[in-house]
């Protein structure tokens, strides 16, 4: 009676093609939807959208019937109740993006669909991107100069004046940040040095009174000099800031309220309703470029993610440099020298299992071993004076220890892949090498490793992909929310392994869960996700190209 399924299972037909094709289809659908979701939500962040006026047709929350609100529809849901229950509450609700964070509690509101109606897309509403007040939807009134001159928004020169002033301001801001990163950080370093010298003087018993006196006076001279310089630079920055604030921008927001901000606080102004698609594309490209190339502002919710790109990239490269020799050498020993006995079988199994250990475990290990034990030890030996002032150098999380931790985490992947690659080298050429009078090590170095290189690179690609996307262990060993400086910069010694750094994976987590307004930060989180994906894909792509070039160098078809 159950013969029909026996028949099905034993049939010669190709029924199982469908089963396996289904598996593939599900996989493709999942991957495609992931990529489409991230692409769409990540890229639309930068596309300027038209701003609409909504009129309240009923009293709702603290809005009254007849109130007019500028906003963009961000979402529409039925059968859910995000909004405050009221008489007007309906089954369908709109999520409106209304910007103006400083005037409202949130940049988003949920309203019942039947409480509002779209009335128009006004010509004179502008989207204003500020330095740290988020985006504003405003009706511009006029520009007011320090000397009292005014340019009204309906005067013909307004647009031109506005964009020119913004360009000038951008240049000024760059100048300020250049000074802050350059001269100011040099002076801070000098001040710290003087402090350290003083401390050393206190600790060291070898100096005579006279010498101590002499050094002390030298140091105080240096201190005075540094303070003078500091003051001068601060003054310079102040002046620059003043000229940045020379123009005020007056505008009108909802409820006919008037306000003004300094033009120096504004990054970008545009009027989406009056732009054609080409102009919108221009704004899109500028915004995208700013996102890629700028430092974050306003609790990471504004600005760009440049430091996270640098941090992720440098950490991944460092990790690859650390993991490759260790992993490859370990695999060479296991494959070529280790005997096939219980001990080495046990080790091999452990290595494979290590690849499955949760990454957070490596984070904890990294913190206790690399940071506290190794880093603390290094500080006690090489940075005694700083350690005495309770300033850790390597005894705190940093990009070096993060790379070490991830290298440790990905070593098993490299070992397993390398062993497999070594096994796939035909034994014939090993014997041929030995017959030519090569020692075992010569055979490994000249024949085995070169022949196994594509396979080793595959392992490295896997390790890199895993390491670049890892977040959990990094939180223990050096990733922070906002790093004041990059791990690589123009300051000697150019690569600063002791510095804390920002990481894209952690940045996504930070934006989505730890920012003051997580709903507003979510688009940024998606944009960062997209970039993390792109970075990982790009690094893998380069590695794969490299591997293919190696493969083609000597075609191994005959094996």
């Amino acid at each position, binding site marked *: 009676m159950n013969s029909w399924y026996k028949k099905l299972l034993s049939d010669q037909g190709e029924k199982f093609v469908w089963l396996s094709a289904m598996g593939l289809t599900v996989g493709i659908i999942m991957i495609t939807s992931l990529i489409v979701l991230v692409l769409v939500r990540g890229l639309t962040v930068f596309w300027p959208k038209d701003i609409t006026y909504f009129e309240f047709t009923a009293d709702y929350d603290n809005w009254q019937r007849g109130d007019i609100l500028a906003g963009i529809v961000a979402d529409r849901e039925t059968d859910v109740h995000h909004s405050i229950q009221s008489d007007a509450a309906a089954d369908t609700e709109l999520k409106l993006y209304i910007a103006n964070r400083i005037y409202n509690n949130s940049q988003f509101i949920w309203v019942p669909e039947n409480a509002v109606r779209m009335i128009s897309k006004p010509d004179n509403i502008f989207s204003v991107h500020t330095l740290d007040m988020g985006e504003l939807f405003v009706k511009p009134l006029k520009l007011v100069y320090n000397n009292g001159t005014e340019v009204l928004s309906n005067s013909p020169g307004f647009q031109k004046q506005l964009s020119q002033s913004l360009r000038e301001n951008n240049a000024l801001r760059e100048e300020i940040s250049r000074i802050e990163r350059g001269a100011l950080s040099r002076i801070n370093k000098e001040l710290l040095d003087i402090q350290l010298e003083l401390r050393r003087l206190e600790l060291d018993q070898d100096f005579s009174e006279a010498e101590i006196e002499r050094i002390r006076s030298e140091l105080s001279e240096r201190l005075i000099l540094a303070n003078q310089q500091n003051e001068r630079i601060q003054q310079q920055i102040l002046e620059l800031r003043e000229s940045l604030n020379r123009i005020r921008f007056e505008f009108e927001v909802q409820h006919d309220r008037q306000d003004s901000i300094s033009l120096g606080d504004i990054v970008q102004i545009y009027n989406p309703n009056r732009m054609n698609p080409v102009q919108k594309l221009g704004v899109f490209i500028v915004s995208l470029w700013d996102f890629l190339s700028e430092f974050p502002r306003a609790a990471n919710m504004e600005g760009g993610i440049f430091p996270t790109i640098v941090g992720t990239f440098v950490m991944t490269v460092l990790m690859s440099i650390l993991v490759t020799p260790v992993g490859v050498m370990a695999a060479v020993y296991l494959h070529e020298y280790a*005997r*096939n006995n219980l001990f080495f079988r046990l080790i091999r199994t452990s290595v494979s299992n290590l690849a499955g250990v949760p990454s957070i475990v490596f984070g904890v290990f990294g913190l206790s071993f690399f940071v506290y034990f190794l880093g603390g030890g290094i500080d006690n030996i090489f940075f005694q004076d700083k350690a005495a002032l309770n300033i850790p150098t390597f005894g705190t999380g940093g990009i070096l220890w993060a790379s070490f931790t991830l290298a440790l985490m990905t070593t098993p992947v490299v070992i397993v892949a390398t062993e497999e690659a070594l096994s796939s080298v*035909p034994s*014939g*050429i*090993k*014997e*041929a*090498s*030995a*017959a*030519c*009078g*090569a*020692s075992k090590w*010569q055979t490994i170095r*000249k*024949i085995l490793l*070169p*022949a196994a290189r594509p396979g080793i690179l595959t392992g490295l690609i896997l390790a890199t992909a895993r390491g670049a996307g890892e977040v959990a262990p990094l939180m223990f060993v050096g990733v922070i929310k906002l790093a004041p400086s990059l791990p690589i910069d123009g300051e000697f010694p150019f690569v600063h392994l002791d510095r804390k750094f920002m990481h894209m994976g952690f940045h996504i987590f930070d934006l989505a869960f730890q920012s003051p307004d997580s709903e507003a930060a979510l688009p940024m989180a998606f944009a960062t996700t997209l970039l993390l994906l792109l970075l990982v894909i790009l690094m893998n792509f380069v590695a794969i190209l490299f591997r293919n070039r190696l493969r083609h*160098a*000597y*075609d*191994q*078809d*005959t094996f």
Partner: protein
Amino acid sequence: MPIESQPIENILNRAEDTYEEKATQIEIENLSFWYGSNKVLHHLNLSIPEKTVTAFIGPSGCGKSTLLRCMNRMNDMIENSRYEGSIKVMGQDIFDPKLHVIELRKRVGMVFQKSNPFPKSIYENVIYGLKIAGLGEKSALDEVAERSLRNAALWDEVKDRLHESAFTLSGGQMQRLCIARALAIEPDIILMDEPCSSLDPIATANIEELIYQLKSRYTIIIVTHNMQQAARVSDKTAFFYLGELIEYDLTENIFMKPKDEKTEDYVSGRFG
């Protein structure tokens, strides 16, 4: 008439070289060999003269390849292998712990059953042994590469593409490349483990011709399954059966008037 179907007496070693006994170069005394607990060679005694071609024949699993691989200690690479007895190469016991196996392998070159060029260029393949030994001078390497390739009768075919991958060569060319690689380190003895088993008849004829050319300068030991080949190229032949040396004599005698019944059965194709 095709070579393969000619009667043995027609293809026996060329009539013009009448073999005269030469000095012994390899002396095998009471050699036994085990893979794990499996004894594959039983108390072998054999002396191989210099500058001759000696063929090892016998059915599969008779130990002829194992014996060949003992002579340059290739079996060292196999775990759990064990031997008793001695092999003297030019008077030197090769199992002497004081002897450096690398020195031995420079004296005793080897060509394998399956051609196994390195995944490198043709040129790099030939000079590999010299580079390993630390010779780095470009002109010297070039000279050796040319000489070895000429000796392996490959020079004319590859001289314009020395820096192409070795895998662009045909099967027969690859095997001659492996011979050139063995010649480059200037050994005294060349061991050949069924060098023609995966080649077509023309490539086989080329290699055989090459062996004939080389025997004035090198001692060649060749393991073969092909009776005609043994008859064509070798001066002396050893017949092995189940790990024992049954008969060892001039090739002519082995094929025309074998003393042992088993040898006669084997060479006449009744078993094996």
